[in-house]
């Protein structure tokens, strides 16, 4: 067979590796494209040609660009991202605990968003053009159409300012029990879930509606198959590929959402760290955060694509 399953998965992994190279090169290139370099920022007004030359030599900036790229990459692979330009602290040390916090937030949100969006998407495709479907469509279109911070600020306004139910700021240090966890994380997690859910619902609905309009579904219906069996046995397996793909693509909006949610709720995560680093133009920190984000995203999308290939009989031939 020309396109066997392992071969396809191998191809996908190869594509992921290409993307990874592209991402790494882009991150390095963008941050090295300017004529000035870190020495200007570090020395400021004290810069004399001698000190600049000495510091450039000390930081290895007088080396050829390929050599610098290689040593930067080598260090990054070993978890060594250099030091923050702002306070001289190790970037890796700053990122470590915050990455854990961010993964906790994103993971909890995904845990809510994925099942909820699958349920909403599939049911609204089944009950297409009913009142329920229309409500879901309008709500999700509304959420997709407004920036993430709008949803977050509305949530803060309603639950913290008006109802005094939940804290507007997440205090991770005070979380010791499940109750405290729910209290502190409820709002950021549900907001993030809502933001990333909308896109998933829309794409799941489209995939399911597409499958349900196929002629073999009509055939099955005419044979007299019950609705549950029709959906679960005939429609769902064929819609699974596009649905998994939809979930993977929505992870991008989850990542975008994480950035905004962390800032709104002053959550101590890696995205908030990155925004601060961008404001102060702390390039090593930005590089490291961007790499961590992009690699996470790449792993997730590749994983989802492999699931798509495995789940879809058609995909094996494509």
């Amino acid at each position, binding site marked *: 067979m020309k396109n066997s399953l392992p071969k396809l998965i191998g191809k996908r992994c190869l594509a992921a590796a*290409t*993307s990874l190279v592209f991402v790494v090169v882009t991150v390095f290139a963008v941050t090295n494209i300017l004529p000035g370099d870190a020495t200007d920022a570090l020395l400021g007004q004290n810069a004399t040609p001698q000190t600049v030359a000495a510091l450039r030599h000390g930081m290895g900036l007088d080396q050829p660009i390929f050599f610098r790229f290689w040593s930067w990459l080598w260090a990054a692979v070993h978890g060594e991202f250099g030091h923050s330009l702002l306070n001289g602290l190790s970037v890796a040390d700053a990122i470590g605990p915050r990455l854990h916090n961010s993964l906790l937030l994103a993971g909890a949100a995904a845990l809510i968003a994925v099942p909820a969006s699958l349920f909403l998407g599939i049911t609204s495709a089944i009950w297409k053009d009913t009142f329920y479907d229309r409500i879901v469509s309008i709500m999700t279109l509304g959420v997709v159409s407004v*920036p993430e911070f709008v949803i977050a*600020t509305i949530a803060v306004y309603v639950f913290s300012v008006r109802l005094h139910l939940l804290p507007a700021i997440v205090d991770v240090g005070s979380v010791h029990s499940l109750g405290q966890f729910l209290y502190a994380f409820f709002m950021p997690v549900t907001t993030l879930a809502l933001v990333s859910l909308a896109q998933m619902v829309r794409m799941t609905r489209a995939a399911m509606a597409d499958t349900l309009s196929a002629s073999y579904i009509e055939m099955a219906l005419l044979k007299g198959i019950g609705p549950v069996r029709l959906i679960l046995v005939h429609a769902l397996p064929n819609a699974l590929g596009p649905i998994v793909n939809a979930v993977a693509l929505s992870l*991008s909006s989850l990542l*975008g959402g994480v950035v*905004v949610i962390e800032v709104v709720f002053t959550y101590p995560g890696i995205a908030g760290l*990155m925004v601060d680093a961008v404001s102060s133009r702390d390039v090593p920190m930005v590089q490291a955060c961007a790499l961590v984000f992009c690699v996470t995203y790449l792993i997730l999308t590749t994983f989802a694509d492999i699931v798509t290939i495995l789940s879809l009989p058609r995909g094996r031939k494509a």
Partner: protein
Amino acid sequence: MIGIFGKLRSKHDRAVLLLVFWLLLALIGPLCSSYNPGAISSQPVFSGPSTAHLLGTDYLGRDTLSRLLDGIRHTVLLCFASTLLSCSIGTFMGIAAVTSKSWVEVLAGRVADGFLAIPSLLFALLVIAVFGTSTVALIMTMGVIYMSGAYRTSRALSQSVAQRDFVTMARARGEQMTYIIVQEILPNIAGPMMADIGLRFIYSVLLLSNLSFLGIGVQPPSVDLGSMVRENMLGVVYGSPAMIVPVIVIAVLTVGINVTLDSHGRKD
């Protein structure tokens, strides 16, 4: 009104009409405001609507309506410029990729695919960290981010058109590449491409608003809708229009165009 909308049968026409409306508002709006958007009035901060200040005042006691009109101008014009940039280059490259198979186009395709591996907000953060938040940098950043999307759409759309006889005919006549792209293929994908441009415009409005809200988009003393929400966040406690109205304007702008493009998507 129904007469006008009846004539504008396709969703693209209506989306274009909406875009033109927002552009006009962006260009003419600030001329109609009765206050300098930066001027501090004698009113207390976060005051409610009054006859002097129709939407009240903001966190420094400035007229909200004047600032809103100025904010709309920045948001709409910045996003329009970046959309123009991304869609013109992206569309051209997309058609070119189908029309000729030289290595430049193959490379462009690879780069465009690569860009999809980087979430847009992240890429914007990365670029802004290096180039700063000048107007040109913001336009270029958003332009580059959405270029790959426009490229993919136009490549997909022109795939079938490029196979048609009149393109083969034009090639046989020995026409230039540019002629085939602009005169033969572009008019045939213009309709669906307009819908794509509308979407990219929405995306860039969302991105710019998010960036400004995070404090790394449009910088004071300039103001756009996102930074207006940011600077008036304290007003949320008083239910101040200075914080709520820009949120509503963003929603009306984006939902409006999205609904126009989406509602007919199923029927067409």
